[in-house]
């Protein structure tokens, strides 16, 4: 379904330096029982965020008031495992609009692009720069410009370009999704199906 348009995002950053963050950590399976899309943000990183009694774990970054923002910065191989789109719904519902990592799992990345969360792949070196900058100053801001395909640490001006194909870029900028595209070529698809 349609989502917010993405152009330039300027925000503080929430750092999560863990590697191999799988979708079972992002949203555990027992919270996948809804039949609608809303409310998943409450259980984002549930078992890292809350203890078994449901009390917030003080040492987890989402419970640390020092950090906030619309950009989640994570370690490599983010989003591995299950194809559950609920993981991205939880990230979006919580308020993140971009996830930055040096490496994303494939299905997770597709799911992000399908619902309007921008996955930004950067070099491990630049990830290190960002982690250090956020650690030194949690109020430091990062700008993500989708049109220029550029991510910038505003305090120093250090930046890096990132990849996104032009089709997905246009979708993100306009809040379109793939179904809009597919429905527009339905005759072509029907002709193809006819021959199968």
């Amino acid at each position, binding site marked *: *379904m349609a989502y917010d348009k993405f152009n330039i995002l300027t925000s503080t950053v929430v750092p999560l*330096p*863990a*590697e*191999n963050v*799988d979708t*079972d*950590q992002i949203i*555990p*399976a*027992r919270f*996948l*029982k*809804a*039949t*609608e*899309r809303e409310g998943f943000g409450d259980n984002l990183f549930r*078992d890292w965020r809350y203890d*078994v009694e449901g009390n917030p774990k003080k040492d987890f970054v989402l419970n640390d008031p020092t950090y906030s923002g619309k950009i989640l910065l994570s*370690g*490599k*191989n983010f989003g*591995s*495992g*299950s*194809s*559950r*789109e*609920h993981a*991205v719904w939880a990230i979006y519902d919580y308020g993140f609009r971009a996830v930055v990592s040096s*490496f*994303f*799992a*494939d*299905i997770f990345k*597709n*799911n992000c692009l*399908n*619902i309007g969360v921008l996955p930004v792949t950067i070099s491990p070196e630049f990830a290190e720069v960002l982690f250090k900058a956020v650690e030194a100053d949690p109020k430091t801001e990062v700008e993500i410009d989708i049109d220029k395909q550029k991510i910038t640490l505003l305090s120093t001006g250090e930046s890096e370009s990132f990849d996104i*194909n*032009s*089709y*997905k870029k246009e979708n993100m900028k306009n809040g379109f*999704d*793939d*179904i809009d*595209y*597919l*429905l527009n*070529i*339905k005759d*072509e*698809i029907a002709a*193809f*199906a006819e021959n*199968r």
Partner: protein
Amino acid sequence: MEKNTLFDKIWDSHVVRSVPNGPDVFFIDKHFIHEVTSPVAFLNLEKRGIGVLHPDRTVGTPDHNVPTVDQDKTIKDKLSRMQVEKLRENCKKYGIELYDLGSDHHGIVHVIGPELGITQPGMTIVCGDSHTSTHGAFGAIAFGIGTSEVEMVLATQCIMQTKAKKMRITVDGELGAGVTSKDIILYIIAKISAAGATGYFVEYAGSAIRSLSMEARMTICNMSIEMGARGGLIAPDETTFAYLKGKQYAPKGEAWDKAVAYWKTLKTDEGAVFDKEYTFDGTDIEPMITYGTNPGMGIKIKGNIPTTEGMEGSNKISYLKSLEYMGFAPGEPIKGKKVDYVFVGSCTNGRIEDIRSVAAFVKGKHKADNITAWIVPGSREVEKMAHEEGLVKILEDAGFELRQPGCSACLAMNDDKIPSGKYAVSTSNRNFEGRQGPGARTLLASPLTVAAVAVTGVIADPREVF
């Protein structure tokens, strides 16, 4: 003439059009749905005011959150019940075939597809579940998708996908006694890591792969996603055709001969180029087990948990955090560690061959007192065969508890949860933190290893037990 891989041949023949500087519009032959990842897709179709384009190309079954006891009764958990009821409602409304709880072919979606002969060589198959890669064992392009894509398939029978890079993993040589296809795939993932095939679609080849049954091939393709691959596939051969012949939805008569003639063309051309190749020697592979919290953290059962030597920074921090969760120390042996639960089941190892192998090994023995042993058939068909072959009796005599089909303790959406802090040796596919229940500690292994653990009560090498 152009040399193509098997993956190229199937992919290219399903591209409706390629978007310049964008993905391909990719046509889907078969679509499986289950209760967890489909309801929002149907809801969105309704919001858009559109229907299902080809209901005959979609098949549904409830598997992820269904209870594995009293399946003939109303589901107690309200949210689970609502999801299953939603699936029924949606399938009925749009004319989609549903293999419901209690029907003869109910089961885990990746077990029933092949069992019914719905899965066939050369097809493109998707499902809102990452283990859809299982169907690749038949020489199909099969992979998991998100719910937005489920919606796309329902609405248009297409998704927008960028073609993956191509990887070939060749395993030659004869496998040793006690070594199963689960050990092969755990070995491969340990070698190339949990992200080693991200961006790729994998073809498995070589004499060790060729020698495997369809069930064993499915176990390998199933876990392709655990090394990051979109999917994995194996070229169809006589083993594939023999498995499919006579299955409910397999072609019959003349159509069968025609299909087989086509299926025989589905192989990688000599000289075709892959973006990446790995070759492993089957004789190097021994019974494997995982010790950490991603499937790449696997070792030989007789080996030691790796030390932190050579690790630094966030890599070392993540590694130690993982071992802390598991309650293990770097450098220690894994064999002999006490276990609390064993689980035989899931789309990885919940097929009849898996249950046969466990039964053959525990026959006349009994599980250790400290072990709770669950065995969950992948489908009603598997359950029925296990009864008819006398396997259920053998397993129950050995102290195993047989449950009804479903995903069960693989992801613990239902009540089949491993308690916090307890150790489970499991034939499933993921050892992530909390995967089998909050705080549960999962070690992945083959059904044979699980049988050895059940009988001894500790982590054991099956070759030394039986």
